C-alpha cells in the first residue's frame, strides 16, 4: 500500500496506448470496461441510467449494457446505499452513485453502520465490494450542498477505504482498481476537473515517462500516493482538484527559486504515510492543502503523520491551507473560500520564514 515510485527523470517517450481524455471520459470508459469484465457489476443511482448521470459519467452505459446492469433508482440516497448492501450480500459488485457530495449525508447511516461494518460484523462472510462514486468538492458555482468535501468524515470510518483521483489517467486506473476490490471504497471525483483533458495510458497504470500535471508518467503505485512534481525545498500535499492548483503554485514559486514538490495523496484512507515521510524527509517543510474546512479536516491527520515521522528534521510546523470553518458559500464567494494561489503561497512563505523561538 505504501511504496511510492518516483518517476525516473529524463525519459520522455510517449507510451503507445496514451490518449487525451477528460476525466469524465476516462471514468466513463473505466465503468464501461468494468461492466464488460465483471457480469456481477451493477451501476445505479439517481439519473444514472437514461440520462447518463448529471455529469454524464455513466453516459451510454445503460444503452450498451442493459437496464439490469445500469439503472435509475427512486430519489433516496439511504435507499441506494442500503440496497447496495443487499446486492453485495447477494454476490453483486455494486457501483452506486450519489449525485452530489452533499447528498451523501442522508445515506451516512447506511455507509457508516452497514457498508463499512458488514464484513466485520459477519466475520468476513459478507464482504462489501461496493465502490461508491461521489462527485465531490467545489469550484463549479453550484447550488448549496453541491460543493462539499467529506473526506475527513469518510477517512474516520473504520472499514472504509477512500480514494480521490486528480488526473484522467488516475481516474481511469483508480476506478478500475477500486471496483475490483473486495472492500468498500469511497471514490471521490473532483467535479471541477471532469472536463479537463489529460493523457491516459490505458494499457499501463504505471508508465515511466515523465512530464507534469495530468501526465500518467509521474507514476507511483496505484495503491499509494503519487509525486506529481519533484522538488527540493518544500512539499505541498494535496488531493482532488487541489493538486492542479498546487502544481500552478509550484510553477510560480519556481520563479522565485523555490523548488516545490507536489505530492498527490490519492488514497485518503489508508494514507500513504511512507510517501509523506519520504517526501518531507527530503524537503523538511510541508504545507497541506484541502478544500474542506480546517478543523478536524484531513489536513490535521496528514500534518500529524508528517510531524510524527519527520519531527527531528522538520524546519517548521506543517502548515494547513484549507477551506474555512464556514458552510461552503454560494458561487459569488466560492473563490474566497477555496484555497487560492495567494493563500497557498502565503502558507509556503510562513513555512519558509519560520524561525524557532
Amino acid at each position, binding site marked *: 500500500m505504501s511504496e511510492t515510485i518516483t518517476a525516473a527523470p529524463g525519459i520522455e517517450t510517449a507510451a503507445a496506448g496514451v490518449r487525451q481524455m477528460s476525466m469524465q471520459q476516462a471514468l466513463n470508459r473505466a465503468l464501461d470496461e468494468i461492466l464488460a469484465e465483471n457480469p456481477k457489476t451493477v451501476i445505479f443511482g439517481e439519473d444514472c441510467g437514461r440520462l447518463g448521470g448529471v455529469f454524464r459519467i455513466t453516459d451510454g452505459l445503460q444503452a450498451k449494457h442493459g437496464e439490469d446492469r445500469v439503472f435509475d433508482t427512486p430519489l433516496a440516497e439511504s*435507499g441506494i446505499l442500503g440496497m447496495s448492501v443487499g446486492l453485495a450480500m447477494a454476490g453483486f459488485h455494486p457501483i452506486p452513485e450519489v449525485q452530489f457530495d452533499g447528498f451523501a449525508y442522508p445515506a451516512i447511516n447506511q455507509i457508516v453502520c452497514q457498508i463499512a461494518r458488514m464484513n466485520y460484523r459477519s466475520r468476513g462472510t459478507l464482504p462489501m465490494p461496493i465502490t461508491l462514486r461521489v462527485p465531490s468538492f467545489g469550484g463549479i458555482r453550484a447550488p448549496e450542498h453541491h460543493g462539499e468535501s467529506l473526506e475527513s468524515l469518510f477517512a474516520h470510518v473504520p472499514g472504509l477505504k477512500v480514494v480521490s483521483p486528480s488526473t484522467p489517467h488516475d481516474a481511469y486506473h483508480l476506478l478500475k482498481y477500486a471496483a475490483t476490490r473486495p472492500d468498500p471504497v469511497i471514490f471521490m471525483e473532483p467535479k471541477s476537473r471532469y472536463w479537463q483533458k489529460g493523457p491516459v495510458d490505458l494499457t499501463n497504470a504505471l508508465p515511466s515517462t515523465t512530464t507534469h500535471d495530468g501526465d500518467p508518467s509521474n507514476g507511483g503505485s496505484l495503491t499509494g500516493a503519487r509525486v506529481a512534481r519533484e522538488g527540493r525545498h518544500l512539499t505541498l500535499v494535496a488531493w482532488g482538484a487541489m493538486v492542479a492548483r498546487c502544481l500552478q503554485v509550484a510553477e510560480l514559486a519556481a520563479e522565485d527559486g523555490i523548488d516545490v514538490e507536489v505530492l498527490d495523496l490519492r488514497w485518503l484512507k489508508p494514507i500513504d504515510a511512507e510517501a509523506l515521510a519520504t517526501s518531507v524527509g527530503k524537503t523538511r517543510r510541508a504545507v497541506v492543502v484541502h478544500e474542506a474546512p480546517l478543523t478536524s479536516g484531513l489536513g490535521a491527520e496528514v500534518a500529524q503523520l508528517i510531524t510524527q515521522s519527520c519531527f527531528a528534521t522538520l524546519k517548521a510546523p506543517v502548515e494547513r491551507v484549507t477551506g474555512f470553518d464556514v458552510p461552503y458559500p454560494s458561487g*459569488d464567494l466560492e473563490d474566497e473560500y477555496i484555497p487560492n494561489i495567494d493563500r497557498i503561497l502565503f502558507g509556503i512563505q510562513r513555512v519558509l520564514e519560520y524561525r524557532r523561538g
Partner: protein
Amino acid sequence: MTTKSMLAAVDDDAAPLTHHQLRELYTLMAAVRHLDTSAVAWQRQGIIPGYAPELGQEAAQVGSGYAVDRTRDFVFPTYREMGVARAMGLDMVGYMSTHKATWHGGMYNPLESRFAPIQAVVAGSVLHAVGWAHGQTLAGHAAGEIGVAMTYFGDGASSQGDVHEAMNFAAVMKAPVVFFIQNNGWAISVPTERQVAGGSVAARAAGYGIPSLQVDGNDVVAVFEATRSAFAHCRAGNGPVVIEAMTYRRGPHSTADDPGRYRTLDEERLDAGDDPLERFKQRLLTEGVADEAFFAEAQRLAEAEEEAVREGIAELGPRPGAEMFSMVFQEPTPALQSQATSWREESEHV
C-alpha cells in the same frame, strides 16, 4: 379530480373567488410566467449562472401560495417555488439572488416574508414544517386561530425517508401542516411511474390516517380551493392534510439539463396537457371576468416587473467575503474570528 370528502373541517362556506381575485390570480400567474421564462434567458445571457424553471407549474404555485395567511402561516419551499414566493409577495430580487449565486438561501428575510430560505436538499424542509407546526400547537392558539405550515416538495422528493417521518410525526402529533406535493411528472430524468410506487403520493396519506386531496394542478382555482380547505382543516386543529397537485414540468430540470436525453418533444406535448396560463385566460374570457385589455395590461405589468427584477439582480454585487464568517454563528468563536482575520490579510490584503 379534487376529492375533499376526507377533510374534517372543509371550508365549503368560503365564498367563491370574486372577479377581482380571479383577475389577481391571473396577474400573478402572468408575472410568474414572464419572470420565469426571462430567468432562463438571463442564464443564457450570463446574467445568472443557473436557474430551475417552473414553467407549467404556475397554477399549482400561485393557487396554493395565494391561500396563505401571511399573518400567521409559514411556507417551506424547496428550490422551484418562485411562483409561490411571488404569490406571497416576496422581494423578488431577494428571491432571485440565490440563482445569481449571491447567497444560498436567498437575500429576502424569511421571518418577515413567512417563507423559509430556499432549500436545495430535496425533502430537506418537510420535517421543519412539522416542527414549526407543532410549535403552533404548543403555543396554545385557539382552534380556528392556529398558524399553519405548508411544505412544498416534488414527486421525486416523496421517495425520501424524511417525508415518511414527517407525515408520521405530523399525524401522531396532529400538527397543522399542509404537505403540498407538486407532482410534475419528473424528477430530473426519472418519470413518476419509476419513482412513486402506487402511482400517487396522495394515496399514501391514508396509511397515516391523513386526509388527502389530489387536485388538477393546472387549474389555479381548483388548487386555491383545495389549499384553502386544507388550511381550514388544519387551522381548526384537525391535524395535517396532504395535497398532490398533478402538473407537468414543461421546461428542463434546470438550465444545466437536457431533457432531450430522456423525453421527446412529442411526449412533452402529449403529457403536458393544457398550458395552465392559457387555460385560465380562456376561462376568464369565457366567463367574462376579463377582457383582452386586461390581459395586455397583465403582460405589460409582468414585463415592467421583470425589468425591475433584472435590474435589481444586475446591481447585486457579491456579498462581502467577511459575511462568510459573520453569518455562521450568533455568538462567533475566537477560532473563527482568527480565520476571518487571516482571510482578510491574505485575500483582501488588509
